[in-house]
């Protein structure tokens, strides 16, 4: 079965005209997707081989930019692999993809500095 990629349920997303804003509650990162990157988000759930086809024939540099944007969505775990059905993405006009990653507020999220989760569960105490 072909692997299908879906939006990570831990990420809150909202679409405004051509821009998608993503906020990851657990990591403190947030994102702005525009152009082909926003189109990729709109195409979810999608299988990877269908991604490039949704923009029609593209010159090599544009293909690379789409692959790079898709790679960023995967790298930041904004999309996750799933077993569910995919949808064939509608054809859309290509606009250069933009993935803006904001990490300036991540420090607001304070994880416990003393304990870490171990194999035995919680808590496994470490010397501070």
């Amino acid at each position, binding site marked *: 079965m072909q692997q299908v990629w879906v939006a990570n349920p831990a990420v*809150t997303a909202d679409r405004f005209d051509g821009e998608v804003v993503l*906020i990851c509650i657990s990591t403190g990162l947030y994102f*702005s997707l525009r152009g082909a990157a926003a189109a990729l988000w709109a195409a979810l759930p999608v299988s990877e081989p269908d991604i490039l086809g949704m923009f029609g024939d593209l010159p090599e540099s544009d293909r690379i930019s789409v692959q790079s944007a898709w790679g960023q969505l995967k790298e930041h775990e904004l999309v996750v692999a799933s077993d569910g059905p995919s949808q064939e993405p509608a054809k859309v006009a290509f606009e250069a993809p933009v993935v803006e990653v904001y990490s300036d507020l991540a420090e607001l999220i304070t*994880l416990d500095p003393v304990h870490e*989760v171990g194999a035995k569960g919680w808590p496994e105490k470490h010397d501070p």
Partner: protein
Amino acid sequence: MILDPEAHGRTDTAIRALLALGYEQVEDKIAWQSCHKAGPASFTLVSSHEAAARLLTPYLFPATAPGFTLYLHVGPVPAWDFAHTSDRHLERLHVSEDELLTAQYDVGTRCWSIWEEESQRGLLWIHSLEDLPAWHQTAPFRNLIHWALAHTSAVLLHAGTVDNLLLAGKGGSGKSTTVAACALAGMGTCGDDMIAVEDLHAYPVFNSVKLDASQAQRLGFGIGLQVSEKAAYRYTDLGMRVPLLAEITAIIIPIVSNADRCSVEPVSAAVALLALGPSTAFLLRGHEQQSLEKIKALVRAVPCYELKLSHDLKDVTDTLSFLKDSV
């Protein structure tokens, strides 16, 4: 994400027992009762520790309606010792599967905040007043108020207001200085850092403005309460006008610049969400999805502008004064 619902439920039970113990400790020896505003809501504070209540209430506004109940207890605090059943436990945050019980244990200050939605009661259990960081004084019961509002149509926001304008932006964006300068010029404010919003109206929650030393000096303020690297003042002590509520007609995103004159540009709702959503959701933990849904509705409902602040405070107040009348 809840990893083991059964074990997670056992933690609910343990936290409810902790809550019952806290209530019992307070009710056995009530030394303080007072009513305060929590944005559009209000609450009754009940404490067994008068000194703690005296420390934590000066920056709250008085209320007449009793509203929900918050218990304040000071004494040896049971540490967090639960099975790891949720990724949120890394933050020492526990939210029951039905989201009606919310609790957080602050390791640094050894302090529990617990909110029980069904009974409309919450508990702040502090180990000792000496361990309490100063921000607790200027924004007391912040988590509990946030959780109490989460199940209503209101939301606690990391934002300020100047009359009918909501100012959004992360720390250091110029919100506090702008609010203080405008309030000194006679405009009303519901707050510079934390406000409540419901149905496109802003409500004050905390009677405090925090400024760094240079900004406080620039505005002619005296010595305030030291909170981290800032000094805190009460709006009402400074003679500033704090309305009961203010209709929001626009969102302003201030940006510090060294320009001679302020400049204003319309921006998209997406830009406003980026300014308001993450800083609220990452600061006020638990029930973030509810907060973000309310923020998304807000940024779609009113026009949004980016305001590049000039170094001239008179120009800043004139610009805000013009904007409040024209949007």
